[in-house]
C-alpha cells in the first residue's frame, strides 16, 4: 500500500488550537469545574503534540511521556475536585469571582 502522508504542521496546529481553547476557557469561564475541564483540555493538546513529535523523530520516549502526563493529570484532577468540594461546602458557590478573599 502506498503510505500516505499528513504534514506534521497539521498535527501541531491542531494541538495548538486545543491548547488555545483551553486557555481561553480558563480565562472566560466562571464555573470552577469548567475551568478545571479547560485545564484538562490544555493537557490533552500537549499530549497530541508529544505523540506527533515522537512519531516524527521516531523517539518512543515521547509516548512514554504522554503516559506520565496522564498520570499527573489524573492525580491533579482528583485533588482539585476534592478541593472544589471543600470550598463548595464553605462558600456555597461554584462561581470563581466570589472566591476572592486572598487579596490586598
Amino acid at each position: 500500500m502506498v503510505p500516505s502522508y499528513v504534514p506534521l504542521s497539521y498535527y501541531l496546529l491542531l494541538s495548538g488550537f486545543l491548547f488555545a481553547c483551553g486557555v481561553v476557557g480558563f480565562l472566560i469561564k466562571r464555573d470552577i469545574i469548567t475551568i478545571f475541564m479547560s485545564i484538562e483540555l490544555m493537557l490533552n493538546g500537549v499530549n497530541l503534540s508529544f505523540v506527533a513529535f515522537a512519531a516524527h523523530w521516531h523517539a518512543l520516549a515521547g509516548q512514554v511521556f504522554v503516559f506520565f502526563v496522564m498520570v499527573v493529570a489524573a492525580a491533579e484532577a482528583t485533588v482539585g475536585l476534592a478541593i472544589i468540594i471543600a470550598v463548595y461546602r464553605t462558600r456555597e458557590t461554584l462561581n470563581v469571582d466570589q472566591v476572592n478573599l486572598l487579596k490586598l
Partner: protein
Amino acid sequence: MNPNLNLWLIPVLPLAGAAINGFLGKKASREAVSAVALFFCGAAFVMALWVAVRFSTLSLPHQEFVAHWIRFGSFRADFAFYLDQLSLVMLLVVTGVGFLIHIYSVGYMWDDPSYYRFFSYLNLFMFFMLTLVLANNYLVMFIGWEGVGLASYLLIGFWFTKDSAASAGKKAFIVNRIGDFGFLIALFLLIKHFGSLDFDQVFRSISPLGAETAGAGLLTAIGLLLMVGAAGKSAQIPLYVWLPDAMEGPTPVSALIHAATMVTAGVYMVSRSHVIFERAPSALMVVAIIGTLTAFFAATIGIAQTDIKKVLAYSTISQLGYMFMACGVGAFSAGIFHLMTHAFFKGLLFLGAGSVIHAVGGEQDMRKMGGLRSYIPWTFLAMFIATLAIAGIPPLAGFWSKDEILWRAYQVSWVYWLIGVVTAFITSFYMFRLLYMTFFGDYRGVQEQASGQASHGHDAHGHGEPHESPMVMLVPLMILALLSLFGGFVGWGHHFEHFLAPVLGGESAGEAGTSITEWLLMGVSILAAVSGWILAHLLYSARPELPQKIADSLGGFYQTVVHKYYIDELYAVLFVKPLVEGSTRILWQDVDRKMIDAAVNDAGDGAGHVSDEVRHMQSGNIRSYAGWITAGSAVVIAFMIWMGVR
C-alpha cells in the same frame, strides 16, 4: 647629625594637660586642676629652655620627623618639626609668656565655676600654637593655624551664656576663616607649582628665582594670598574687626591669645615665608601699606575708647601693624623683634588691666575709674613700666624694637616713616591717657562697684574699696615688667638681627654702624613719644575739662571715631546682611525646602502612589491572575522567538 630632641613633646605636653583637665577636671578640685595645667605648661617651657641651652650645639635647621601623614603621588606632607633661630625665638616667647599667664590665670579665674574648662582650653591653645611655631611644613602649620582659631573661639566665648560673648566668638572664627581661605589657596598654589609644602623644599625651589616684576606673577599671588591669611589671623585691615569684640573673653585670654601669641602667628608666617615675599616686591609693598595704614587707623580709634580693654585691643592692632610694616620693608627680623617686645609689654598691659578690673570689682569703663594709684600701687608700677615701653621711651624694650622698624622704614620710604612716627605719637598719647584716667585723679567709681560685680568671675569681697590682687597675679606682672624693662637690650648692636640672620637674611642697610641719620630719627621718635605723654598729661591730669570741650567742638567727626568709623556697621550692610538674606531666601527656602526636601518627600510619596496603583493587581480573582500569566507568557514566547530568529 643632630640628636633627637623629642621636639614633639613640646606641643604634646600641653595637649596632655588639656585632655586630663578636659575629661577629668569637672569633678577635681581647683588645686588639682591648677597643678595639672601649670605642670604641663611649665614642662613645655622647661623643655623649650633646655632646647635653647643646647641650641648652639645643633646644626641648623634641625628637623625631626614624627610620623607619616600624606603620601599622594609625588606629594608628601609629614608630621615633622623644624627648629631654627626663628622658631626658637617664637618658642621661647610662646612658652614663657604662656606659662606666666597660666600662673596669673590661677588667681584671676579662681572663682569661676568652669575653672577646669578654662585651663583645658588654655592648654589646648598652647598645643596648637606650639604646633604652628614648630611646624616644618605649611600643612602642619595650618593645623596649628586652624587650631589656634578654634581655641580662640572657645576662649572668647568662654562665658557662652552671655550673648555678646558667644557672638564675639563666632565673629572671630568666621573672620579668621576668611583669612584661612586665602591661606589655603596660597597652599594650593604652592603644591601645584612647587610640588611640596615643606619649608626647605619650597624655599630651595624658590631661592634661585629672581624677583618678579611688579604686577602679575605666581609668587606675587602666593604672597598676597598669604597676606590675606595673615590679615585674618593678625587682625589687619580689612579683617581686624574681630579683635575688639574678642575682649568679651576673660582678660588672661586677651593677654595670651590676642596680644602675645595667636595674633602674632601672621607675622611669624610672613617672616617664615620671607623667601617668597622678597621675590614678590608688589606683594611686599602691599604688606607694608596694610601694616602702616592699620597701625595709624587703629591708633586713631584707640584715642576715643572708654573701655580699658578696648583701648588695649586697638593698641594691639596698631602694634601688629608696625610688625607688618617692618616685614613689608624687608626688615623681617625687626618685625620679629617687635613681636617679642610687644609680647612682653602688651601681655603686661592686659594682665595689669585684668588686675585693675579685678580691683574695682568688674568695672571696665575708665570713666568710672581714677585715682587707683594709691589702692593698687604694684599694679600701677607694672602698668607704668608697660606704658613707657609701648610708648617707645628708652631704654625700655618697646623703644628699641619700634625704633628699629622706623629706621628701616625710613630707608625704604619717608612716607612709611612719617606715618609711623605720627602713630607713635598717638600711641603714646592714648596709652598715657589710659594711665591717667585709671590711676590718677579722683576715684570716680561708685563705691558699690568696688565691693564686687562678678563680671569677671571674681566674687564680692565686700571691702568697699579697690584692693590689690593676690600674689599669684602680681608675680607674673613683675616678671613681665622686668622683661619690658630689660628685654630690649638684645637688640643693642644689632645682636638680635644677627642671631636671626641665618634664617631671615642679614641684609640691612643699617649695617654700617649707626649713622647720623639714625641718631636723628631716633631723636624724633623719642620726641614723638614724650610729646604724646605731655599731651596726655595736659588733657587728663592738668586740665581734665579739656577733652570734653575738644570732643564737643569736633562734633560729628568725634562721634565717628568713637564708633570706630562705623566699619562694623558697614560690613554688616555690605556682607553680613546680604549673606544672611541670600542664605535664608535662596539656600534655605528654595534649595533646601523646595528642591532637596521635595525630592526626598516626593520620592517617598511617589513610591506610595505607585504601590497604591499596583496593589490592585492582587485582586484575589483567579481569572485576572490567569490573564496576567497569559499575557506574560505571550511576551516571553515572543521574546524567545525573536531571539531564535535573530
